[in-house]
């Protein structure tokens, strides 16, 4: 199930809100667990078994790690940790990367092996969450969870189940046991959820139309203006889609008194790629830092090892996003830029006027999306040439797209900076009543317009029929 559907908004959500707040405190985690499983099963009825299996394995992993630790056997604890991690990574490998692996084997060995496995929704997210838990128990960064309902509730919690943020167990451990739902927190959640829903439905989906139009055309004949419009549309689409999803997750979390950490912090205003990655998908960056980069030695063993570590982390980050070479390339692309920034670019950028560092960053992350969005590596090359005018600079279609999507692109641009938020905060300081009226109007119109766009996406008139 996705948040931006009538099914979620007008069937699932009312039932969950009603049930959750009617039930006494002690049943609420169980209730959330059951409904989260239902939420997951709606799209993937069979893979629910896989997720339940993972939950049990990692729950037991935590128990055993803790048990060996308390009896003083670090070796036993380590074994338990390794076993659970091998299973986690093994399952992720099998379900996410088998097809990709076989494709490459086929290409090299000229074989014809096919095994089609549908990717289980959210597996990359929930696997990483559970791994963080067992590792943290091992490291002593968090207490073991002895109640499988609480643990299952943590893993499957529907707000963050499908697309993050990757919530580390230690950040919600306390909330699982004791949290206080209040109307105030619920109201904050409402604002956040509505912001996220409109980012996804009103901006991301509509700009997706532009990117779909451009990427579906013959790339060799796309003029530069069209190519730039297309990739800018994708740039905003992915940001508003993904950060909108995180906003909805955080907002829904708040309604049930969970506090998830922030996942995005206006990444597109960054002045370097290093800064960009501190602001983009923060929960993933943190995860790789805590559970891969630092264990590899981080920056503590000299420059050479640090460069190696950055390269490994970014290759992994790339592949985490999808089982295809373009994602590996995308990861390495950022790996190289980050290494260069570490070596000298960052110092240089600090000396330059901020205008130049903005242009530098915008160009690099926008170009990064070309690599990310086009799975076929030869398309990436063709698109790159198109961006620089290999098929001319503009034509009628470019102008048409510019006029039809220009306003939406400008709106998206403005809302990807903190400017609207700052202006609103200023208004709140001076005219709090007006600000509140605007908030109310904003929430209502965002709600209605989102429902309008969700419903209209299925508008499908049939014009020629006979019987």
């Amino acid at each position, binding site marked *: 199930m996705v948040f931006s559907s009538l099914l979620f908004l007008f069937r699932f959500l009312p039932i969950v809100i009603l049930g959750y707040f009617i039930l006494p405190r002690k049943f609420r985690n169980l209730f959330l667990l059951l409904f989260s499983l239902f939420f997951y099963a709606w799209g993937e009825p069979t893979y629910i078994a896989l997720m339940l299996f993972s939950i049990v394995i990692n729950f037991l992993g935590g128990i055993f790690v803790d048990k060996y630790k308390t009896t003083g056997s670090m070796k036993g604890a380590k074994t338990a940790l390794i076993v659970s991690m091998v299973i986690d990574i093994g399952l992720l490998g099998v379900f996410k990367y088998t097809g990709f692996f076989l494709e490459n084997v086929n290409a090299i060995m000229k074989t014809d092996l096919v095994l089609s496995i549908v990717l289980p929704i959210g597996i990359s997210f929930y696997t990483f969450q559970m791994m963080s838990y067992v590792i943290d128990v091992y490291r002593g960064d968090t207490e073991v969870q002895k109640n499988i309902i609480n643990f299952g509730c943590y893993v499957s919690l529907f707000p963050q189940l499908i697309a993050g943020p990757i919530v580390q167990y230690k950040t919600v451990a306390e909330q699982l046991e004791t949290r206080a739902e209040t109307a105030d927190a619920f109201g904050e959640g409402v604002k956040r959820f509505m912001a996220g829903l409109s980012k996804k439905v009103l901006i991301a989906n509509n700009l997706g139309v532009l990117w779909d139009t451009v990427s579906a055309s013959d790339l060799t004949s796309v003029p530069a203006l069209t190519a730039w419009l297309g990739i800018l549309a994708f740039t905003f689409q992915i940001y508003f889609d993904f950060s909108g999803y995180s906003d909805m997750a955080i907002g829904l979390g708040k309604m049930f008194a969970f506090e998830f950490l922030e996942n995005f912090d206006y990444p597109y205003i960054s002045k370097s790629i290093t800064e960009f990655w501190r602001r983009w998908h923060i929960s993933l960056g943190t995860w790789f830092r805590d559970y891969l980069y630092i264990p590899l030695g981080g920056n503590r063993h000299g420059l050479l090892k640090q460069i190696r570590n950055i390269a490994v982390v970014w290759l992994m980050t790339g592949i985490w996003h999808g089982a295809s070479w373009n994602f590996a390339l995308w990861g390495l692309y950022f790996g190289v830029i980050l290494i260069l920034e570490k070596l000298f670019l960052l110092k240089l950028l600090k000396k330059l006027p901020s205008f130049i560092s903005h242009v530098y960053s915008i160009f690099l992350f926008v170009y990064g999306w070309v690599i990310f969005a086009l799975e076929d590596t030869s398309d990436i090359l063709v698109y790159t040439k198109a961006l620089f005018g290999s098929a001319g600079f503009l034509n009628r279609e470019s102008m048409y797209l510019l*006029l039809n999507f220009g306003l939406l692109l400008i709106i998206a641009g403005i809302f990807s900076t903190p400017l609207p938020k700052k202006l609103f905060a200023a208004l709140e300081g001076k005219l709090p009543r007006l600000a509140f009226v605007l908030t109310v109007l904003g929430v209502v119109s965002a709600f209605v317009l989102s429902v309008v766009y969700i419903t209209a996406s299925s508008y499908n008139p049939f014009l020629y029929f006979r019987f």
Partner: protein
Amino acid sequence: MKNKILTSLFLLLVFGFTLLDLLTPDRAFSEWENRELKGAPEISVGRIFSGEFGSDYESYMTDQFALRDSLVKIKYLADRALLKTDAGGVYISDNTLFVKQNEINREYLEKNISAMETFSLKYPSRFILVPSATYICRDALPPYAEVMDEKELFESFNFESLEFINIIDEIKADSYFRTDHHWTADGALIGYNAYRRTLGKEALAKDAFDVSEVSQDFLGTSVSKSGAVGIEPDVLEKWERGKVKSVEVYDGLKTSEYSSVYFDEYLDKKDKYSYYLGQNQPLVRIKTDSEGGKILIFKDSYAHIFSQLLIEDYSEIVLVDLRYVRERVALLLEKTFDVSLEDFDEILFLYSTDTFTTENNMLWIR
């Protein structure tokens, strides 16, 4: 306090819409979208585990969602506010809608032309192609809208046996409905006069017909496709000249007889263009009181509004829609109306550019 108000508001919206939706009865058919809406899906263990039930339920819910038609209209307005100049494959211009042209399918086009040429060797025929309003009104389209040059297509024809009647320079912007892709009776008369010219007959003026308005609120296919609101409706006129004896409509299974070429029942529906001869059917025969000859027309729906103009001039008008024919036309005519191709004094192919360049059903005329 403020958050309490927001919370209540949100709950009101969520629960309000939910209740409204649950209380709204299901509809089987949407006249606005001109299609059947999904009904409640079948439930079974197998369908649940395959995920079929889940996805069917979502389509069902979306199709039946409360206020669906109104919500779709709000989307149109919101898109317009964002300066969009098209919707659902339709260009939106000042109070007029233009359906985007489909790309020409060269293979189909070649096949259609060669089938018609071969046919015309044996049964000399004429051919009128109706350009799209989108091309004719290209200056009225939104800025930079893509237009296919139909004149280039018209001038590329080089028929040997078939007599091509080129009307692209005569047809005008007001020859078309503003809310529908068809031509109006005025447009059809331009086509008919061009046809009469090739027969050596004089052109007819509008006042040769007994013209009367039959509907002032025709919102056609372009409105349905785009979901447009705030477009002034078109007027439908009936142009009478001569008397009809009978109209026989063969729908593929049976033949029904009517007394008029006008189907009044469609004036109360959304699909008002079907006032002219009803919906597309494989065969239609109009018998008249006239002394004139017999004409056979291979056609798409552009011929429906056209046929009324011919009544005084022909004793029999037979219309064949090849898109709904799945056997040789000669056989079908023989079987259904007991006529053969030789019985006709004139044969006309009457198509819109879109049907002619994107569909391939001509093989049945061999």
